[in-house]
């Protein structure tokens, strides 16, 4: 499929806009939930020589931490996001998809520093309908939340978070979700929502952001990514299955 897809460059497409050249697997080949080839090793993203869209090598081998300063914090984050989006018979979970690296990298940038948001005081708690009113940046909230996750693990189970059983981790995450944990300057429920949303972003964003390794999350969900056109298939009565394409295919 990838080879077929490569036959349609963006430039070619723009020259022939409207011509149906998109490669697809014919309708009816649904079965998206069974017989799916996934990497059962759950290998940590960034170590493989995955191929990106159009057969170009991706840059995942350059992956590293930009925000967290020690692996212990990063490992707590990794285990937590894996519980939110676990590996299963459908395919890889958040760790294998690179979501922890995605989150780390985002926390080091505009997102982590709330650059495009209004951060002037004075700060008041406000009503839920008024939204985020914390003085803390997202980067600060994540670091605090992760430390408290580990504290909770030690308090409840006398072990670090990463050494817990899945059900024990879930108990702690649920406590955050239900706003039962005290955090400074922010509610634990808010941290949970941030963590869940960031996980989904890391799982499903284009691989150029260091998550969604090899577009495997898109394959699981049958989202085709960056397709140039659907004009030839938009009236198709059957479900059309595509090999996904990343924005890396645009760099030419």
């Amino acid at each position: 499929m990838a080879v077929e897809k490569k036959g349609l460059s963006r430039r070619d497409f723009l020259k022939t806009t409207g011509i149906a050249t998109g490669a697809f697997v014919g309708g009816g080949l649904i079965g998206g939930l069974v017989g799916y080839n996934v990497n059962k090793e759950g290998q940590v993203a960034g170590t493989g020589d995955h191929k990106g869209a159009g057969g170009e090598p991706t840059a995942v081998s350059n992956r590293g931490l930009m925000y967290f300063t020690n692996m212990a914090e990063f490992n707590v984050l990794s285990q937590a996001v894996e519980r939110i989006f676990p590996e299963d018979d459908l395919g890889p979970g958040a760790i294998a998809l690179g979501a922890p690296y995605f989150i780390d990298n985002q926390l080091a940038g505009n997102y982590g520093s709330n650059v495009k948001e209004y951060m002037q005081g004075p700060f008041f708690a406000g009503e839920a309908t008024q939204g985020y009113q914390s003085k803390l940046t997202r980067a600060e909230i994540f670091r605090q939340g992760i430390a408290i996750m580990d504290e909770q693990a030690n308090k409840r189970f006398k072990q670090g978070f990463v050494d817990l059983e899945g059900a024990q981790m879930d108990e702690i995450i649920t406590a955050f979700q239900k706003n039962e944990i005290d955090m400074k300057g922010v509610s634990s429920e808010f941290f949970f929502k941030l963590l869940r949303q960031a996980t989904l972003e890391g799982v499903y964003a284009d691989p150029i952001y260091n998550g969604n390794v090899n577009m495997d999350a898109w394959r699981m969900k049958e989202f085709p990514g960056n397709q140039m056109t659907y004009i030839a298939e938009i009236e198709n009565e059957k479900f059309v299955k595509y090999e996904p394409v990343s924005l890396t295919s645009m760099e030419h």
Partner: protein
Amino acid sequence: MATTLEKVDVITVGVGWAGGIIGAECAKAGLKVLGLERGKERSTKDYSLVHDEFRYAIRYDLMQDLSKETITFRNSRKMRALPMRQMGSFLLAEGLGGSGTHWNGHTWRFLPYDFEIKSMTDKKYGKDKLSSDYLIQDWGVTYDELEPYFDKFEKTAGISGENKNPFAGKRSSEFPTPPMKRTPILKKFEKAASKLGYSPFMLPSANLSESYENPDGESIMACQYCGFCERFGCEYGAKTSPEITVIPTARKTGNYDVRFYANVVEVLKKGNKVTGVRYIDTQTGEEFIQPAEVVVLTSYMMNNAKLLMVSGIGEMYDPDTGKGMLGKNYAYQVLPGATGFFDEQMNVFMGAGSLGMSIDDFNGDNFDHGDLDFIHGASLSITQTGVRPIATNPLPPDTPVWGEDFKKSSIYNYTRTLNIGGQGASLPHKENFLSLDPNYKDAYGVPLLQLTYNFTEQDKNLHKYLTEKTAVIMKEMGAKTVMAGNPITNYDIVPYQTTHNTGGTIMGASPDNSVVNTQLQHWDAENLFVLGAGNFPHNGGYNPTGTVGALAYRAAEGIVKYSKAGGSLV
């Protein structure tokens, strides 16, 4: 110390649809027009990497930088207003094209009923149908008077549609281009709605069904159904936007210029006229006075209201006395709807922002409200906009929002879920209004706009009644599980709802009931015009842009006339 620049004929503050239309029409008539745009230049070539849900839809690449400017919000006067620190309920824009760059392209004409809502409601249901807390009023202009301008805007934009809505106002001509493609998903809706006795039709769309040259000679391409419209710009130039139509038209005249990074902070008024504006160059921090014969406020409705307020032009609305017009009649929309979970997979990732079918059987006064505890209604539509994986994780009732079951269910249902949504009209209420915040300021030291807003009983009743209608259609479409929308409670500024905010600078037939006259000319300054959805005295059951465009073309005609003769246009 501000530097005073050379005078121009016309300034527009903001360059989106309204600013672009004024720019094109006034420059064609020989006036020297300057658009002051706080954001940056951009065009189709800047949208070539736009198939990126994360960057554009989640991180809001095209939207306003709230660190510079936002609004404050409270549900009622009893609450302390706090800043909207993150974008949520609605998406403010900046940059050339404004919201016209990232819109979906639904291009409606408000119903004849909308323009005469007060007199038609009173006539049919008596004066006490609604309590006097609801401030509905006629707009001072009728559908028939506005029709030629609807027609003009649709021809500029090349709108694709079909004249099959039995409830629509009379059209002087057919849609410029045929409707978009009827997809299997739309056909499901069409069949179900028809079977229930309703009248489905293709949604009028600014994603064009075929390539088109508009009367100004601008080309718009044919939509590719790529599924990246709302929150995105169009890489093909196939979603009609100001930067591919009215702005190039204005530039071709040689009478038009846009100055970027120019953030207007004050409209300067002397006696009963304005003399120009004061703006800050956001790159250098320098202040400039730009004099003009005519000033036209064409930024988003919130910023238009704010500029009038900080400039002391017009009397502020006072909810205790009902006096003052500025900031009055802020309205939003309510969104009745139902989600359906199907067995079969569908091509939900394909689509276009305005690819949809609608019914108007429950909009405006198209159905009898005699036994109902609300007036007006909503257009009900199914749209196939192209759903994307970060934001779209459909879960049937009682499914956990994370973990193993979440993953399985959200992946399974991603390609098996459809929504029917209504755009519920929103009526003004005396406690819903805009004012200036006394505590918080923007990056230039100017007070933030303050929004006081909550849903009303009318909103809740309308929402409940129409949600049930959408659920019935969804069931008829064959969904195995139908999940009707939850009843609305307090307005919450966090989740995205709709960028159809209206009011605050309303139009009307008299200075006693409006900020601007029916030509959108300010009652207190004859050379100041205020354009946009802020002019709407209430919000209808549709997207606003078609009506904004029509009002802008009508105002442009008035501004050209004013620049020759002066005086009041009404």
